[in-house]
């Protein structure tokens, strides 16, 4: 027995107008100051006003949000008592909003206690809408909440099925203003979700199709969206890909690139998409034979040539590195600018953090601590994994 969990997905240009159809008295928008500056908050307010709703805005979500921020936001919601919570932003904002929404519904449960084993109960106070402004995290379709655990230099994974947004509003107009670097990082994040979800030990029939489609879309449209941010077709396809990947992976889980990527991000604050994507090819090499048939299936989907007698894993890893290079993303930890001495001092901590990450459980070949340290050292130097 297993579940496939999904929000209502409203997608395409003008999807934002779905907000004007909502029924309710008060909406709280959870966002960051950048969304206010870009005018996106006004766009959302305009639609909510058409629905006759009063609106309050919490714009205090920082990148890699902390548990403290989520607690502040939950207190804000408890103060205003909305019947809709509208998250507008990237993965940080949407994850924070999921935590805040849970804290509003259940003040008796701490956000750090949200876990997939203990049901939270249905939302009765306010429904949650997530509007992504990046095309990568898929957080609009997932129940996962990634937060910075202050004082521990690590990111923690929290959440339960009831944290899934009620509506994912996937309107590519909100992705148009992403700069090329962010487009690259978030697009590669979506690719990582899709490849990991398709090859995790919890892969399933319901997720597979979504994930393969997402892989195709990222390979096809990321270079275009990177070159020309106003290419609306590419933007729309990438935005869809991110949501498809989110829907797919949350029901099959991610794997080692996320476990190690969270560790890297927790210690060095490497942006999430960059961290997981640069590590992805190394994990494909490491997992290797344990998923060879699936690497071959992905390679087939991408029309990559796998000569007879050759393994698909290194060919797929190379294709991902080529894609990352084409959008000017680093291929090694060293290329992200982390000095060797800082890295060497932290490698034990990186391995330790990765070993505590939930995503390691669903990796087809899970490394031990010694292998994880070695893995990070190879990834630092840009050496293909050969162990």
């Amino acid at each position, binding site marked *: 027995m297993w579940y496939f969990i999904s929000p209502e997905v409203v997608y395409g240009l003008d999807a934002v107008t779905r907000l004007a159809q909502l029924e309710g008295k008060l909406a709280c928008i959870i966002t960051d100051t950048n969304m206010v500056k870009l005018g996106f908050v006004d766009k959302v307010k305009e639609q909510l006003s058409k629905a006759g709703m009063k609106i309050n805005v919490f714009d205090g979500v920082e990148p890699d949000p902390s548990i403290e921020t989520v607690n502040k936001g939950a207190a804000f919601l408890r103060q205003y008592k909305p019947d809709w919570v509208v998250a507008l932003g990237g993965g940080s904002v949407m994850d924070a909003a999921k935590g805040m929404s849970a804290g509003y519904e259940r003040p008796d449960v701490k956000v750090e206690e949200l876990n997939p084993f203990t049901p939270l109960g249905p939302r009765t106070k306010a429904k949650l809408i997530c509007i992504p402004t990046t095309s990568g995290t898929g957080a609009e379709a997932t129940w996962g909440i990634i937060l910075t655990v202050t004082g521990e230099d690590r990111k923690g994974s929290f959440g339960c099925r009831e944290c899934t947004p009620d509506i994912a509003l996937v309107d590519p107009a909100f992705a148009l203003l992403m700069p090329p670097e962010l487009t690259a990082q978030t697009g590669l994040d979506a690719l990582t979700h899709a490849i990991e979800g398709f090859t995790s030990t919890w892969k399933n029939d319901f997720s597979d199709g979504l994930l393969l489609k997402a892989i195709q879309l990222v390979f096809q449209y990321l270079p275009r969206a990177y070159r020309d941010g106003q290419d609306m077709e590419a933007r729309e396809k990438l935005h869809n890909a991110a949501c498809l990947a989110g829907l797919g992976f949350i029901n099959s889980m991610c794997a080692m690139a996320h476990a190690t990527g969270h560790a890297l991000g927790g210690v060095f604050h490497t942006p999430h998409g960059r961290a997981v994507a640069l590590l992805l090819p190394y994990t494909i090499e490491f997992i290797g034979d344990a998923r060879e048939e699936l690497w071959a299936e992905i390679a087939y989907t991408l029309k990559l040539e796998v000569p007879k007698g050759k393994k698909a894993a290194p060919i797929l890893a190379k294709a991902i590195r080529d894609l990352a290079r084409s959008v000017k993303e680093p291929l090694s930890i060293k290329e992200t600018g982390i000095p060797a001495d800082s890295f060497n001092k932290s490698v034990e901590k990186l391995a330790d953090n990765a070993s505590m990450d939930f995503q390691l459980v669903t990796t087809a070949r*899970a490394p031990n601590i010694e292998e994880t340290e070695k893995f990070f050292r190879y990834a630092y130097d840009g050496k293909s994994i050969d162990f």
Partner: protein
Amino acid sequence: MAIKYASEEWVKAAREAINKNPAYQEAAKKWEGDMYFIVEPEGGLKEKIFMYFDLWHGECRAASVVTDESAKTPAYRFWAPVGVWRQILEKKVDAVQAMMTGKLSLKGDMAQIMKMPKAASELVNSMLKFETEFPW
């Protein structure tokens, strides 16, 4: 030779397997907490069975079948019908998925459990190192 599940002999074999599993020892090196694995009646099994495991920093310090539930006050409790335990030990169901679908229930410090998913996985793997018989 297969050992009857949830018997004193099985619990001892599980303890030995845990203590011989380096992957568990590494993954659980920060784990502190004893637990009950509670086997609920189903089919031919008519009474609850309480298995006690004292797990500490990668080691199983003690393990026994407990007849009086109040004999111990463990930090964690996991309970499920015998059929679910069987599915887990026969690898037909992933233990973490069983917890997520509510087939296997648990009580204890969730934040701690969330930090050590690999330890949970390796704990189960240890119990697969020997053959188990389910007579019910």
